[in-house]
């Protein structure tokens, strides 16, 4: 059941996945499995291409992403010189999509990275120390769990004001609680294994136990979960921009582009749908990559 509620999709944040303790020699096995998995290889290549094109935007297009021309407003796909058309102020769509990848990826990946660091720290503390501190941390997380994720993100962004930073903060706050829950569960499970007791019996200090025995066993599970969140994070961050709560105009970002092109849906429906298509493709690639990783790391499958 774990893998089915953990899948990323708007509004759903996973219940903690069951912990598994992975033997280290098996990283080789994971790599071998991944290299044999054509889907995962393909989507990873796609992602690399998307990242590369958005980073190399100035070299893959000659237009300015902010400079439009009144004469060239809302041209259809296939217009000479503007092969993906132009937007409502006459800016080249291909150019804006390329540049837009930067902010869209940034706004999608950074919240997950932040929540990974903060969430696993809090979760490991809660799971290892337990007691009052653990209860306090977990009860606080329950409060944030009580909001549907979009609602919480919208509330935070709506009140803090729009902008890239606030959108990142909002999504990090949304992702920290599930991250803490998973880290806490896995840590608590690992902590009560005999090898931790044996280490204590051998006179190992708490910090050393966390560093050498807990962290290495907990991190794998958390990392897989984090990759599965990226897809959702990209959808949500673009969604915030779409609502006008994230990145501000005239910056290029897919969600924001979708928002402004929405008015043009009666004139150039296909052009208007393009930014959303990119959000979809990127999020799907992240999802499939995460699925592949999860499958390759599944200890129960003996392939």
């Amino acid at each position, binding site marked *: 059941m774990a893998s089915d509620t953990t899948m990323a999709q708007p509004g759903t944040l996973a219940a903690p996945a069951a912990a598994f*303790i*992975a*033997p*280290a*020699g*098996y990283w080789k096995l994971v790599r071998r499995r991944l290299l044999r998995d054509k889907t995962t290889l393909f989507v990873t290549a796609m992602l690399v291409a998307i990242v590369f094109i958005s980073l190399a935007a100035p070299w893959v297009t000659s237009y300015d992403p902010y400079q439009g021309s009144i004469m060239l407003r809302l041209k259809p796909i296939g217009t000479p010189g503007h092969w993906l058309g132009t937007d409502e102020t006459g800016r080249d769509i291909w150019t804006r999509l390329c540049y837009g990848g930067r902010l869209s990826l940034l706004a999608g990946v950074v919240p997950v990275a932040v929540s990974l660091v903060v969430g696993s720290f809090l979760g490991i503390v809660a799971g290892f120390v337990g007691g009052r501190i653990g209860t306090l941390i977990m009860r606080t997380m329950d409060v944030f769990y009580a909001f549907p994720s979009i609602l919480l993100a919208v509330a935070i962004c709506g009140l803090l004001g729009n902008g890239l930073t606030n959108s990142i903060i909002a999504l990090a706050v949304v992702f920290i609680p599930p991250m803490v829950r998973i880290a806490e569960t896995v840590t608590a499970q690992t902590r009560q*294994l*005999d*090898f931790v*007791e*044996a*280490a*204590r*019996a*051998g*006179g*190992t*200090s708490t910090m*050393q136990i966390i560093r*050498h*025995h807990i962290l*290495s*066993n907990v991190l794998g599970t958390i990392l897989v979960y984090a990759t599965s969140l990226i897809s959702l994070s990209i959808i949500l961050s673009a969604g915030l921009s779409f609502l006008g709560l994230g990145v501000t105009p005239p910056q290029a970002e897919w969600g924001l582009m979708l928002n402004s092109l929405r008015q043009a849906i009666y004139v150039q429906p296909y052009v208007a749908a393009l930014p959303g298509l990119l959000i979809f493709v990127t999020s799907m690639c992240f999802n499939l990559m995460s699925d592949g990783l999860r499958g390759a790391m599944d200890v129960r499958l003996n392939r």
Partner: protein
Amino acid sequence: MAKTGALDPRDRGGKAQPLLTVQNLRKHFPVRGGVLNRVKATVHAVDDVSFSVRKGETLGIVGESGCGKSTTARLLMQLIAPDEGTLIFDGDEVGATGGISVAAMRRQMQMVFQDSYSSLNPRMTMVDSIAYAPHMHGVPKRRAYEEAESLLAQVGLNPQQHARRYPHEMSGGQRQRVNIARALALEPRLVILDEAVSALDKSVEAQVLNLLRELKARFDLTYIFISHDLNVVEYVSDRVMVMYLGQVVESGPVEAIYRQPRHPYTRALLASKPSMDPDKRTTAMPLTGDPPNPIDPPSGCRFRTRCSYARDICAAAIPPLAPPMVDDGPAEHLVACVVPEAQEGRVLTHA
């Protein structure tokens, strides 16, 4: 590393002084529940347990599962804090001023757990696991690893073949050998074996038991051997201690306990033991009544609710451990029972 014959410099009190003396050890666990998650009851896991372990002996601890054997072991290792009680290690009180520190005691006392797989960090190779604690204690990495490999050889594993393996690449018996090696890496004097062979196949169990015997002689070790398997305890122990619901009900030399059990519980336990020889099976009644429940145990003698000899006096007070009333056996044989008929195991005639 081998210290055969030579006098251990850490030996302070000489042969006659017990290696470990345990006085009035007590541990109760709260059970929470209800709407407010209040403490509803207490598990009397270990209740007023006293005993001592002599240098060089193997003390066996037996009892049904749940009677507090593992809790006792964890208390001895200071893995959990006792509610009450003192430990005296070779004459020094543990944790007291002027005594020996917990850290210092832990170096001389090590433990092997039942589950050989979860006892090993799945991301560490065998040598990593063995060398880890000595390295943390300041032994240079090179030397810690060399010694780990030599220990592997001592527990009967080929270092070339097994040193770089991960736990999931080994069999249960092999892993338990590694766990033993890890316990020995800190050069302890006392090793607590908590059901250390219980999870192994019979043939592997015998091999590991023989290994333990060899190591004991080679490193001059003292064992506390915990098991619910009466046959194994009989095989390895010099002295035996029988526990019931967190208390010691009988203790003494292994022959005395097995040949002339004085506590009705011990007798019932032995009666239910699968014996290899049908003629030797005793005729005492098997255990009846509810299985032991350490939550709010009965007053007085805890066994009285299942004991056919029980009478009013049994409910009045917890019977002290004392020499049997009816016996001419060894002086160190102690039993916690106040009914002479029960100690003798006389067949009851009344209805």
